């Protein structure tokens, strides 16, 4: 029983050791030539612009929430598409009901203006 998990435990141990080890050794034996440019926060290679702790619009949260909802719809569509033929008419009806319910939500958020940015 425990033997079956041995390879996984070994893999985990090696992964942890490799990650921690490279950090520790590079900080111990690596050369450090610090300069003002090197100590700057990394921002895609550009010069940093402004503070990293900016406030951003609450609309992002709304969009993120709606995205997850309809993303889940896709997650459910994939297995259905894979088994489309084997599920037959039953599958079409079930997915139809599922999509219809989501469609009601879609119309609702559209009319409510949740998709408008301004």
């Amino acid at each position, binding site marked *: 029983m425990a033997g079956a998990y041995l390879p996984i435990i070994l893999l985990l141990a090696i992964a942890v050791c490799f990650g921690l080890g490279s950090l520790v050794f590079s900080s111990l034996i690596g050369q450090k030539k610090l300069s003002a440019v090197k100590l700057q926060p990394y921002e895609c290679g550009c010069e940093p612009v402004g503070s990293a702790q900016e406030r951003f619009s609450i609309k992002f949260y709304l969009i993120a929430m709606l995205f997850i909802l309809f993303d889940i719809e896709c997650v459910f569509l994939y297995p259905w598409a894979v*088994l489309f*033929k*084997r*599920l*037959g008419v*039953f599958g079409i009806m079930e997915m139809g009901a599922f999509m219809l*319910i989501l469609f*009601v939500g879609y*119309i*609702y958020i559209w*009319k*409510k203006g949740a998709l408008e940015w301004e």
Partner: protein
Amino acid sequence: MDTIAIPAINLAVIAPEVVLSVVAMALLLINVFVKSEQKGYLGYLSIAGILGTLLMLIPAWGSSVEGFSGTIIQDNFAIFFKVIFLISAAMSILITDKYLEREGCNQGEIYPLILFATVGMMLMASGTDLMTIFLGLEVLSVSLYVLAGFNRNNIKSNEAGLKYFLLGAFSTGFLLYGMALTYGATGTTKIAKIASYIAMNGVSSSNLMLVAGMILMSTGFAFKVAAAPFHMWTPDVYEGAPTPMTAFMSVGPKAAGFAAFARVLLVALPALKPEWSSLLWVLAVLTMTVGNITALYQQNIKRMLAYSSIAHAGYILVGFTAGNAVGTAGILFYMLSYAFMNIGAFAIIILVGKKGEENSNVSDYAGFGYRHPVLGIAFCIFLFSLAGIPPAAGFIGKFYLFSGAIQAGYIWLAVIGVLNSAASVYYYLRVMVFMYFKEPTEDFEWVKLTPAFVLCLLIAVIGVLVPGVLPGLFLELAQKAVLM
């Protein structure tokens, strides 16, 4: 390629839920397409939906139909509870409209949300699989979180919504963990199969995984029904939530929690009865005592009723601890009468308030009995029933809960229950003292009595008095709905 065999689906079992969901979704769409002045009609449409659902449920009484490969059942027990849910939803909707108008948050979404919450409760009552029960609970809870914070311009309502959400999500974790452990111990999530597995394999209280699962599930359900020591959220949420939603939350979801709790303990885990009944004994005593003693000190009437609803959960737990037919029939009867008396009391509280300041201190009721004699009498009837004084329904309910406990040999539990009930008379009577023996301090305007309010109060008064005076019929129904 061969087709996948589809398990037996019996759509008739969930037909009432389907109808209610479709009505709710239709209302959601109507809500965004009509002008805001016409939104009052949404309430009536939702009540029509509820009545339609009731008409579908009532002919099913007496039968027991399973569906979806045994994960859902429509039996008398489920139907009895579903009727309670639908009644409490309909009565809450009747008092919602004017309240929202007064508070200036007249959003039509409240009606679909109430209906979705009701669908969740109905699924909980008829779920015979831990997963179905959990699904119903989530549908219910998510709707309730929004309903508690519905008055979004009011900071207390916001607090209520957030607090309920955080603590509710936390307690759901407990429930789910308990379900997982129970599944681990028995290898199934179906309630009937859990019981038969335990009976066949002689799994008993020595199986720690099963006992831990039972305890964690009880914790989750105890939170949902606001039993001490898991009641801390109740006063804040009940005080902050819009008053009609407080009325709804204190009745429907509590009944749903008890329905699912009863099915899990009485049907799935009867083998652990010595364990869970001693657990519930402690919970019942704690809940009754904490609820009643804290209610004695409350000045705010919404908080007082919140603590009183905790105490009432304790009385129901007494019937639960007994675990016999009389006690369980008592639970059903009590939940039904509690729906009428509590929503009636909250309806009066709404009438006494005005925008922003809800006049919810007990002293605001000074002179209420003389200014509005009829409303005063109605309020007295609800308070008498809550206190458990005959001939109100609350008395008969308590009588059966406690006699169930005595029959099962829990004499001390019944004694503590009766003592608690006597203590509770103090804070209910205090409101009446203010109503009839104190002069009003200031003049404030009262909400106009609309036909919807009158209808709600009338249903509530009838629902308190008729089962109180003629308990036979209702008790017979409750006895037929018992799970054994």
